[in-house]
């Protein structure tokens, strides 16, 4: 069957005609094979123009479309929805970014831009006829469980938010402490294994002595940080150093610390590697400010190498300085030392002023929350990446601050890096909301642009199984690789790495990419 292509040229108000010769582009499109309709509209992002395009598409019974407009991510939801209503498969609608790739970056060279635009049009038309119609599938979630690993500040906040979405929350708490949170609380519960994919996980949970299997739609990791003691030369000299979280707890019960108080950023200031957990995070600021507010007479020193405070926590600096907390910055060469003969004086080289300071202290507090030891087992069970410092890694700092690269697995709190209780609470609420929304939908959507194996070519070498970040390929019953469609995200890493070229990615096949490439290189500009 011959393809019927509709070409839509968007003027982007006046930007395109200002640089390009629209008549020449229209003529080029009209002369091309398979093109049945060419339309020029003022702005396709406007409902009126989109409606006229769609009615034209219905009238001429087109089956694929090429739209020359602006950035795909801005316009594609509306356009694809409209074309779907007109009965056009959404994967046959090709959106070409003419505005940001041709018009805006070459405003001083109209002739070259015109030639580039024409070449781009040829390439898009060549690619368009090679596209294949694809289907999206849905699968019902078997349960509505959100399993939260860790019932600390972040975990409890996540449970409260997730429960608002009407899902079942199950909190796993490693210790036996009693707490109040919506849902089921499994004390002495630990996550030891998992299989499945976002939406339908099968978790293996160790509850006390017995093992249990639990279905879950989403998992939130809120394991928090671990525990540590003072290390290195400092540990030999000072015997009664207090970790920051314990110091905070003691302060809550009303005990008055012996002043002056020195807060060191890490348990091992002379250590070789400075991990992200060894920075002074905003939990240090939070605790010292509270201490100073309760007991203004106590002198407080914060000794640190790197200080990180997020967002509005920056204001805590100002507050701390106004309250009279002294900040001493050091570098590795001038790390704080305590002479064992005089265990109540700390010697540190002030990096900013180049001065050797001798601080007499009553209490030494160290402020590191090391990565949790359970992180490794959890990351291996759920197959999510860890950071070099031993914490859980999130997908993308800007886009997905509480989501891991694996769909359906969320992360919050000090499992990422140390943070204050407020920030952990907010992150927990965010992760809970995301997980709640994810599970509330009740089904997962998959398919579309995914990888597919040609069994005849596959030699079951396991390269794809090892490379895929989502564990989508597996060796099936026929001893050939198969793709678990629910897990496939359509990145095509397995396609590029397959030594026998047995895998292909729908709509990004080798033929389609090389055809587009050759057409682009044929143009002279």
């Amino acid at each position: 069957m011959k393809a019927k292509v509709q070409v839509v040229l968007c003027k982007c108000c006046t930007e395109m005609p200002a640089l390009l010769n629209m008549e020449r582009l229209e003529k080029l499109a009209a002369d091309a094979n398979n093109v049945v309709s060419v339309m020029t509209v003022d702005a396709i992002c406007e409902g009126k123009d989109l409606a006229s395009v769609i009615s034209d598409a219905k009238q001429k019974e087109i089956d694929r479309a090429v739209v020359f407009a602006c950035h795909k991510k801005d316009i594609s939801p509306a356009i694809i929805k409209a074309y779907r209503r007109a009965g056009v498969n959404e994967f046959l609608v090709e959106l070409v970014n003419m505005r940001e790739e041709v018009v805006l970056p070459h405003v001083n060279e109209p002739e070259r831009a015109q030639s580039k635009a024409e070449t781009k049009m040829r390439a898009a038309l060549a690619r368009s006829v090679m596209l294949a119609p694809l289907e999206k599938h849905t699968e019902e979630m078997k349960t509505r469980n959100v399993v939260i690993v860790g019932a600390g500040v972040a975990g409890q906040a996540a449970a409260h938010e997730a429960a608002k979405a009407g899902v079942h929350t199950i909190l796993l708490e490693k210790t036996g402490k009693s707490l109040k949170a919506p849902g089921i609380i499994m004390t002495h519960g630990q996550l030891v294994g998992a299989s499945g994919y976002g939406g339908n996980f099968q978790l293996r949970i160790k509850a006390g002595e017995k093992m249990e299997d639990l279905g879950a739609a989403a998992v939130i990791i809120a394991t928090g940080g671990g525990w540590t003691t003072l290390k290195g030369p400092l540990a030999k000299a000072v015997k009664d150093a207090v970790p920051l979280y314990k110091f905070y707890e003691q302060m809550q019960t009303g005990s008055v610390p012996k002043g002056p108080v020195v807060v060191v950023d890490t348990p091992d200031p002379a250590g070789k590697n400075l991990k992200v957990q060894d920075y002074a995070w905003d939990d240090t600021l939070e605790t010292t400010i509270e201490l100073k507010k309760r007991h203004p007479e106590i002198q407080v020193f914060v000794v640190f190498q790197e200080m990180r405070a997020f967002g509005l926590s920056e204001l805590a600096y100002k507050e701390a300085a106004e309250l009279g907390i002294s900040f001493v910055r050091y570098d590795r060469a001038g790390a704080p030392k305590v002479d064992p003969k005089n265990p109540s004086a700390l010697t540190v080289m002030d990096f900013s002023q180049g001065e050797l300071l001798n601080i007499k202290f009553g209490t030494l507090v160290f402020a590191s929350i090391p990565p949790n030891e359970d992180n490794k087992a959890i990351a291996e069970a759920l197959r999510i990446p860890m950071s070099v410092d031993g914490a859980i890694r999130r997908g993308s700092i800007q886009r997905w601050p509480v989501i891991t690269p694996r769909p359906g697995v969320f992360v919050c709190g000090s499992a990422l890096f140390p943070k204050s209780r407020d920030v952990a609470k907010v992150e927990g609420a965010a992760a809970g909301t995301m997980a709640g929304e994810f599970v509330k939908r009740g089904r997962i959507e998959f398919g579309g642009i995914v990888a597919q194996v040609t069994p005849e070519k596959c030699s079951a070498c396991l390269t794809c199984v090892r490379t895929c970040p989502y564990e989508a390929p597996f060796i099936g019953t026929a001893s050939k690789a198969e793709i678990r469609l629910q897990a496939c995200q359509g990145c095509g890493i397995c396609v590029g790495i397959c030594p026998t070229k047995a895998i292909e990615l729908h709509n990004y096949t080798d033929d389609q990419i090389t055809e587009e490439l050759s057409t682009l290189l044929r143009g002279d500009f």
Partner: protein
Amino acid sequence: MVERKPKIVGFCCERHGMDAVVLSARSGKQYDASVRVVQVPCAGRVDGIHLLKAFEDGADAVFVLGCLEKNCYYDTGSIEGRKRVDYVKQMLMEAGIEKERIEMFNAASSNVWMFPEIASKMVEVARKLGPIGRGEKP
């Protein structure tokens, strides 16, 4: 004599790579028109055959633009892409073609200055080395 226009191909990943291209254009940055952008879902999708095919079809320089390695949308995609590029570099050297003609870059979507810089760098490489096979080598 009319100056020869170089041909440069850039494989840009659909995530941070393409976002960097779009953002640089929206902030009014200009770059040489000879850069042809081919969109791929991820830098890991780029295969050796695409890179070599580009040279075969007359490209003077080829680059791959992916996400930052520690912040890749598909986790390991840009690392895989870099491996692929290094592999093709090896092949080019064996064939007697300058390895500078192919390069891998990483950009965050907010790096406005990145794409014009990459473009001018690759254009310079293409101008300096000239068309493939017409270098100073015997």
